């Protein structure tokens, strides 16, 4: 079972985000980390490797610094990495990201492509399905459980109020939700071994794509405006005289807001 995990480097979720004039996040201004949702995909891929054999390859598109995210995944136990980096790819939207990843995947040997359900920066959640579309593979999104059996991949697909059981012949694209597993820490031996593992670098010219298919020139979706989330209004502070009054006040509040 060879798994390619598509990983995105994102600004640290706790960092205060700044935006460039074209409404993209200024990545240089913040600490960047592996998209937390992708860590679940990496962990799931490592578990598949441990139970089924095979290999785990990390694929990312991003600036040269995205190599850090690949290194961390290698330290967790992935075998090799592919970094697609090129100034021409800067500003790619979800569709062209999927297009670029699909072209990089064409050069790799895989049984499954795994991703996190979305990235914590743009949060479109479009790439997994767009990737499956580009690759002409089945798309199994929002998986909360992943199982390989009888030449098929089966997942529990999270939907409001429950889950669907979905299966497909692989190769296929699987996106996982938070909580599908508990991602491991990289070990110290893993960290020391990571520097000896190979990271292949690809540029735009390696992808055999028309010049206007990715980056700013290829964008189909455009961020037209960025509005900061409004400050949370201050909560109502009640200072009751007694525990009974406090309980009453809480009950009144819950009732008024139709919680009880």
């Amino acid at each position: 079972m060879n798994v390619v995990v598509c990983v995105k480097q994102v600004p640290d979720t706790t960092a205060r985000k700044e935006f460039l004039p074209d409404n993209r996040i200024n990545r240089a201004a913040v600490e960047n980390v592996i998209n937390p949702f992708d860590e679940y995909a990496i962990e799931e891929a490592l578990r598949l490797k441990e139970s089924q054999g095979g290999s785990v390859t990390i694929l990312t598109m991003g600036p040269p610094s995205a190599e850090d995210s690949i290194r961390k995944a290698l330290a967790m136990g992935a075998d090799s990495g592919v970094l697609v980096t090129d100034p021409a790819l800067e500003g790619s939207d979800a569709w062209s990201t999927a297009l670029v990843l699909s072209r990089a995947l064409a050069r790799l040997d895989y049984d499954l492509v795994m991703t996190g359900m979305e990235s914590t920066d743009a949060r479109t959640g479009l790439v997994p399905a767009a990737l499956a579309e580009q690759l002409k593979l089945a798309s199994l999104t929002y998986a909360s459980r992943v199982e390989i059996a009888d030449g098929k991949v089966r997942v529990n697909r999270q939907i409001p109020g429950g889950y669907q059981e979905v299966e497909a012949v692989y190769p296929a694209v699987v996106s996982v939700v938070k909580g599908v597993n508990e991602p491991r820490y990289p070990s110290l031996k893993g960290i020391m071994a990571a520097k000896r593992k190979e990271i292949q670098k690809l540029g735009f010219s390696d992808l055999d794509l028309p010049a206007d298919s990715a980056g700013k020139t290829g964008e189909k979706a455009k961020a037209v405006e960025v509005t900061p989330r409004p400050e949370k209004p201050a909560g109502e502070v009640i200072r009751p005289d007694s525990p009974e009054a406090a309980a009453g006040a809480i009950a009144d509040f819950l009732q008024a807001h139709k919680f009880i």
Partner: protein
Amino acid sequence: MDFDLTDEQVMIRNLAREFADSEIAPRAEHFDKHKEFPYEIVAKLADLGFLGLPVPEEYGGAGADTVSYAVAVEELSRGDASVGITVAAHTSLGTMPFLLFGTEAQKQEYVPRLAAGEMLWSFGLTEPQAGSDAGATQTRAKLDGGEWVINGTKSFITNSGTRISGGVTITAMTGTREDGKPEISNLIVPTGARGYIVSRDYDKMGWRASDTHELAFTDARVPEGNLLGTRGEGFHQFLTILDGGRISVAALSVGLAQAALDSSITYAKERVQFGKPIAAFEAIQFKIADMQTEIELARLMTYKAAWLKDQGRDFRMEAGMAKLFAGEVATRAAGHAVQIHGGYGVMEEFPVARYWRDVKIGEIGEGTSEIQRLVIARLLGL
């Protein structure tokens, strides 16, 4: 000149930081309050390879450098100094003596298990009447029928009394040299050796979750082969061991000081008095600026000492300066932190009270600040 950590060092720092934030810090209050050794945390650290961090790969370690080790101890100590000293003592005092001075057979026998964290190891130098004055060592060992027979007491021995303590390497007087001075050698004493008793458990002011015991040797017997390296080399050996240990204790103090600073900044921004957060007042800002400045200086000195060691160069002076300065900086930082927290600073529900209790040992353990000054002065030829 390059002040940046390498990619590996950054990854090790991030791992230690993440682990400290999610696994250590949230439980530090509990372990401190109940004076409980954090077995589960130590087991997880062992799984991740932290108990053999600077040990060469051929002996089962991660093969990381001393800078990485210092960075890791710093970050772990930011979460809990007790965890920091457990790792530091096991590594610098427990494992390093085997690597530095052990025979190949001794290295093969002990180091892989120590690096894997299957057991902890300790180093026994201090006695009721001897510590930095090691010439006053009263523990004696005599050869008898192919065994060393040991009599004496060791005080304040870290990691010696846990369920996973494998043993202790002790200094003992093994005879008298030609010049009339005591001949000191190091002996390997496994837990369970006949006549070796882990006795008193101390009730410490700080580092309460770390294990510290008194050790009693009453006609304790170990095989003759348990001599560490060469007979009569004990004095030189432990001086070298302590030189290395100072780097990790300095790192521990830096981490603890950083924790005190982090708490102070958070609190100063939240605490409102006279209509504004107290962070807006210069009286608070100056304290915080002093802490930031001193901590960064202590960190730089610590990393420099570690870097020199990695270069195979003489690091004794720098290690002494790092431990001296970091220890005193951390004590000041913890004092400022309590002061900034005001009344809450003396309440155990805020971590700064624990920092304040933990911090003082950094000026005492593994050579007091006064001993560091002596070391520095002697290296200056005074």
